């Protein structure tokens, strides 16, 4: 019963939170650029409008991949907020991400294709640090279950600050923010047109947008987990992290993939692995 309730609440509330985050993102970014910016609710209007638009396709299989992307992203979030095994949750997120990438491939469009290749590179860049985050949490709490990790007495941040910083680093990649927004074109870089989503329109494009909202809520959930014993601080840090990402997004120019891969793996080793080794030696 509790599982069902959490699931329903997550499915309903996560897009609300994700949409609001996206609205704030656009507003704050606009203010940083001395523009007025759209209404906070603009992302909701955009997605609702997409649902009413005609679905023009290159081939119908692309819609399947978009749907699977949304489905498994929601599934990931449901597992997370129900306190399941964190490694399984990460693998489920990876599965969702793979569907997103495959959607781009299936269209045989050069812009989608390059977007997919770069999105895949982004996944390769950030995945080690995400798994190291799970490993770090396990080393402190001796459990991979999110429920157990959340119930641990002291904030994990104090044991694994390196892991926390490493996770913040790759959060920029996960949220597709500059300097690591290689696979999209949220800013004025136009060489990719719209990257993976170039050939998507109407409802499937709305699914993809929704999936990103769910994903963002889940990612901030992991940030929260570092401070779970003090919920107020946890939420505050999660929001602060999101603000930080918006800030980074606005002050950076996009880098080449080599730099993304090297810096993300570098951060994973220099912050995550080092922290875990120190923890191992101390224990």
């Amino acid at each position: 019963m509790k599982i069902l309730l959490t699931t329903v609440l997550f499915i309903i509330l996560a897009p609300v939170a994700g949409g609001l985050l996206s609205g704030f993102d656009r507003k704050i970014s606009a203010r940083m650029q001395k523009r007025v910016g759209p209404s906070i609710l603009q992302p909701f209007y955009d997605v609702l409008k997409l649902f009413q638009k005609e679905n023009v396709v290159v081939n119908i299989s692309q819609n399947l991949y978009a749907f699977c992307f949304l489905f498994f992203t929601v599934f990931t979030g449901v597992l997370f907020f129900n306190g399941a095994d964190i490694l399984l949750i990460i693998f489920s997120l990876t599965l969702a991400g793979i569907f997103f990438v495959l959607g781009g491939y299936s269209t045989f469009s050069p812009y989608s294709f390059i977007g997919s290749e770069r999105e895949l590179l982004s996944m390769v860049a950030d995945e080690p640090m995400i798994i190291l985050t799970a490993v770090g949490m396990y080393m402190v709490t001796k459990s991979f279950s999110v429920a157990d990790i959340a119930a641990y007495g002291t904030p994990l941040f104090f044991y694994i600050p390196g892991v926390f910083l490493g996770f913040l680093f790759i959060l920029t990649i996960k949220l597709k923010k500059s300097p690591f927004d290689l696979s999209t074109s949220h800013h004025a870089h136009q060489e990719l047109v719209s990257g993976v989503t170039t050939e998507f329109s109407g409802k499937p494009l709305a699914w993809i947008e929704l999936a990103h909202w769910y994903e963002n809520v889940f990612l901030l959930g992991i940030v929260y987990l570092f401070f779970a014993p003090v919920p107020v601080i946890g939420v505050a840090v999660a929001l602060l992290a999101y603000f930080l990402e918006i800030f980074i997004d606005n002050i950076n120019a996009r880098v080449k993939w080599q730099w993304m891969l090297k810096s993300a793996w570098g951060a994973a080793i220099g912050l995550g692995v080092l922290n875990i080794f120190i923890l191992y030696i101390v224990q």
Partner: protein
Amino acid sequence: MSFMSLILFLIIFPLFAALLMTLLKNPKVRGFFVMAASLVIAAASVALLVMNLNNSGFVEYAVHMEYIEYAMTAVLLLISVYIIYAGARDKKYHAVVLAIVQILATVGSELLFGGKAEAANALMLDNLSLLMVMLVGVVGSLICVFSVGYMEKYHHHKHVADRSRMFFAVVFVFMSAMFGLVLSNNLKWLLFFWEITTFCSYLLIGYTRTAEAIRNSYRALVMNIVGGLGFLAGIVWLYETQGIIEVDKLLALNPALVVVPVVFICFAGVVKSAQMPFSSWLLGAMVAPSPVSALLHSSTMVKAGVYIVIRLSPLLAGTKAGLFIALIGAVTFLFASLIAISERNLKRLLAYSTISTLGLIVACAGVGTYQAVWTAMLLMIFHAVAKALLFLCAGTVEGGTDSLSIEDMDGLIMKMPKVTVFILVGIAGMFLAPFGMLISKWQALEALVSVNPLIAVLVIFGSSATLFFYTKLMGKLIMIVHPAGKLEKGVTGGEWFTLGTLSILTVAACVVFPVISKYLIDPFIKLVYHSTVSMSAGNIVIMLLMMVFLLLLPLQIVLQRRDKRHVSAYLNGANLTEYKDAAEANDHFYTAGHNVQELKLSNYYLEEMFGEKRLGLVGIVLTSMLLAILCGVMFL
């Protein structure tokens, strides 16, 4: 029929089948008997499993045949003599030298043993052996069935001498040797079968007799002879210091007393399972027809290598030697996965993927805790099934398109839809949640983290590379390009049967793995380690749910409305407009000079970062250093 006679049947029956193959010249008749023999072997393997379900202990069997050991020695000497002859013929003098060393070692060890080194029980059966019997018997037999149709077409396409009789004979000898290897308690017997598998793989890799095939067959032979010599040294050392030559007695000893022989034998296992720095022999093996690759990579040869390491893993647990063996495996896992990113040839990509997976198995076996060994055994099952499927599909694709280059596989799903679906199942089986390999990687991570974070870290980075090279391969296959082709007409019924069955097994293995674990793996782990691995019921339910979704979600494509407006992909307005059908205009565009250009999309291979030349060298240097340290450690 008693266990004992069924075990002997499994070892001896394939030899008769092999003999029959050499006599049958008509391919149709031979094909029939290959299928019949495969069926018998598979049925006997399953029968052994069923009869043994309630008997999960370690059972030894005495064999009272005095002359059998003389016969084995004679066969080994004959093989060495043949290698001297063939090596001289093919001008591979390093093989000749090694074969002479091998003869001296064989004779020398026999003189040392002086006929006194006898095992009380030559054969044995436990759940690890049973698992291996199932892999060899079922997956191996399916590959045989596939080979019937494949080899006939192979000789229509390729202009090489038709030596199919020899091919099938060697394949059955190979299976016999594998059964013998996993059912032997007497280490001398085990070594005998070990050397037979080396010899069979040499014959199969050199099948086409092209210059490349000959070169690569000798590379495999030479490396594995060196490994075999290590194995023999291990046995001699064990007999001289402890006076035993049996697996069961060895396992009962204090690990500290037998570090040297265990390391020697594991060294042979590391070579045979193509771990770095010895991985090049398995890469070279892909010159052989695809069923050979499938056989070597899935159920035989390399699995013999990991079998022996898993068999000895209780003696490695917690030791420095075990740690360094695990590190060799983990480094191999990482580097082979990274190099696979840069591979453009499907079979080479699969070969690197095999090497990396075997690395993970060796890492788990080297760590040797109950959870790690449990994972290693699961990995063997999942890998055997999925990899056999993938190699056979690769062979089928090559038959249909005359190419193994991944760059030529754009939109394969439009040209060979069924084969492509099978490939996708195989790929999913190799790295996607909730399929088998991922379950194992997940468990491996949990098992390794608590023992040694360094090994876990290597596995984590390697896994990300796996994600990259398999997803971009999938992407190529699922592109929708026009026009659709019909390139799978030539695939025979036997081939479809094997591909279909292996696909079903790939999916089924992860649905029923809790059952496999409960009846086959858990009893073994409990017997050896006195504790069992329990995967929470919640997680199993979640994975089953994911599997159900993955099987059901593709229905979305059927349920979609068909009246959608189709457009060609965005090409900056340079699309060909004279085509009425938008889909036709998808893969051509106008260049600046208004010339028509075909659209080509090429995957990232990132050779400058992940190329074999660069990373292969680093991997070899690292693993050689680990091997050197291992040699030092074992004498401390």
